[in-house]
């Protein structure tokens, strides 16, 4: 290993980061917690937890509508978080940053507000076999509502998109492309920029489900060129109940509101209602103020560590994990794409993933088991589910070693 030295210094950094996360300082069944389930939901650094609590202790009030001091503080903090997020993904304008409750809502918003008015029978939406249910079901619903049809780009045995098939399916009947940036079940990084270019050549807009992209690599929405980018706060070390829809201003401007309520209007009367400007048009009702402020703190934290540093560390650790895990007899890996991030799915002998999960948990190792909300991927491999270990900036080689020990124990138990 040529980069052993770099790696050692990495490990020292990571040790510091681990200290930032209170949840990691605990034991489970007498073992130090090894949290390998960050793709489901990441732990939060103390700075995020404290920012939210301090906000609640000192500054909370409703935003936008008040002249008093607390309302002003809350509004400044809430809108300040929007600015941070804009910078974080390099959006052209703060008006392009819509706060939602998560990736799922962001995608539903686009399906209902952008696509639904646009679609009619015979139109096609293009998604892929890799998608999370949150990037499938909203399109199925809007297809049912409009008579449009959902087409699916298939994958190969390694879990990579079949790009020839993508080219074939991308006809001028396609009105919209929805694609994940990184597969949560297999870790595949999709060639999103290339896909956007091809779709745009036919004037077809593209939504990228970035739930698994944002925590692991530097995102530049202008460089990707996509029209919408959706992600969740809780997968990037921020609070649950927060998420972002990035959308290009021109498209957002033209879309009808998704929900009606307070703050998304300029004027309401029973004769008619004038909607507010961006981004407020899409933020009906009291937003998740404390959550968004926490998300802003998570962005600060991610930027203080550095996305490049994170990507490098996780990439090294993913290699290490995959290599070590492969050494176990009877392991089957799912998701072996050339370009991958942070996730490894596997099965061991004929032990059901659910049993594996329990046995590992009993040794302090938290992994996720099941279909990972990606049933079409499971159907492709003709399995009901996998065990999945997923990495975050706070994982280290010792975590992987404990995983391997635990897997061997499971094997003994079921031998």
């Amino acid at each position, binding site marked *: 290993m040529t980069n052993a030295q770099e790696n050692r210094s990495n490990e020292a950094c990571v040790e510091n980061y681990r200290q930032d996360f209170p949840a990691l300082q605990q034991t489970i069944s*007498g073992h*130090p917690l090894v949290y390998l389930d960050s793709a489901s939901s990441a732990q939060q650094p103390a700075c995020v937890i404290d920012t939210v609590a301090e906000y609640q202790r000192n500054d909370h009030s409703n935003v936008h509508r008040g002249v008093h001091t607390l309302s002003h503080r809350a509004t400044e903090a809430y809108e300040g978080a929007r600015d941070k997020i804009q910078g974080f993904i390099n959006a052209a304008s703060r008006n392009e940053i819509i706060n939602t409750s998560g990736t799922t809502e962001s995608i539903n918003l686009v399906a209902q507000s952008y696509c639904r008015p646009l679609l009619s029978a015979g139109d096609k939406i293009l998604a892929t076999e890799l998608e999370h249910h949150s990037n499938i079901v909203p399109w199925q619903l809007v297809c049912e509502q409009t008579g449009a049809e959902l087409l699916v780009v298939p994958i190969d045995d390694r879990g990579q998109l079949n790009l020839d098939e993508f080219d074939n399916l991308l006809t001028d009947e396609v009105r919209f492309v929805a694609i994940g940036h990184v597969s949560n079940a297999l870790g595949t990084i999709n060639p999103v920029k290339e896909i956007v270019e091809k779709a745009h050549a036919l004037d077809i807009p593209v939504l990228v489900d970035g739930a698994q992209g944002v925590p692991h690599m530097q995102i530049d929405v202008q460089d990707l060129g996509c029209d919408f980018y959706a992600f969740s706060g809780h997968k990037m070390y921020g609070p649950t109940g927060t998420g972002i829809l990035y959308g290009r201003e021109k498209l957002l401007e033209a879309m009808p509101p998704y929900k009606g309520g307070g703050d998304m209007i300029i004027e309401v009367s029973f004769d008619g209602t004038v909607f507010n400007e961006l981004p407020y048009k899409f933020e009906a009702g009291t937003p998740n103020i404390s959550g968004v402020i926490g998300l802003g703190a998570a962005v600060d934290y991610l930027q203080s560590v550095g996305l490049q540093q994170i990507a490098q560390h996780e990439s090294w650790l993913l290699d290490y994990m995959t290599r070590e895990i492969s050494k176990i007899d009877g392991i089957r890996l799912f998701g072996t794409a050339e370009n991958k991030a942070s996730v490894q799915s596997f099965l061991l002998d004929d032990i059901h993933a659910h049993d594996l999960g329990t046995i590992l948990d*009993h040794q302090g190792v938290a992994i996720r088991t099941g*279909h990972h909300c990606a049933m079409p991927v499971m159907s492709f491999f003709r399995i*009901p*589910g996998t065990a999945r270990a997923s990495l975050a900036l706070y994982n280290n080689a010792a975590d992987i070693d404990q995983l391997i020990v635990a897997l061997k124990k499971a094997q003994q138990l*079921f031998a």
Partner: protein
Amino acid sequence: MNTAFDNSDDMRDLYRELILDHARNPRHFGKLDDATHCADGINPLCGDKLRLYLRVNEDQSIAAAGFEGSGCAISVASASLLTDLIIGLPSSQVQNYYNAVMQRLGVPGADDAEPGSIDLGKLKALDGVREYPSRVKCATLAWQAMNSALDNQPTPVSTE
């Protein structure tokens, strides 16, 4: 802060030999062609999925039982133990076993049911599950499917 390996650490309390045996070699596995009752059990959140078949005699005793599907060791062993046990029993007796198992596994609400002084026999092998709350649903899946089959409910049962 490390590794206080205790005796339960090898998890033989959960994965007893009898459980592993029934999981590896499930009894009465396969479709029952002349079933009179049938129900699906689905645990959508972990992917366990099984279909339980019963042939019930005129006198309401269980003539035959079988199941198919896929699941973890706990749910397969539980289905195997279940089918093995109930064949030949009157369905009222089966109901007593159902109540007893629910109680034994600490399923909320099960305390209200008749306790009954049943000898659970091999079913005691499921006792360890109680200490693993996230697995209780696996152990009860087949039982709830059976219950719903006997109630002749046509829809799949879900434990979630």
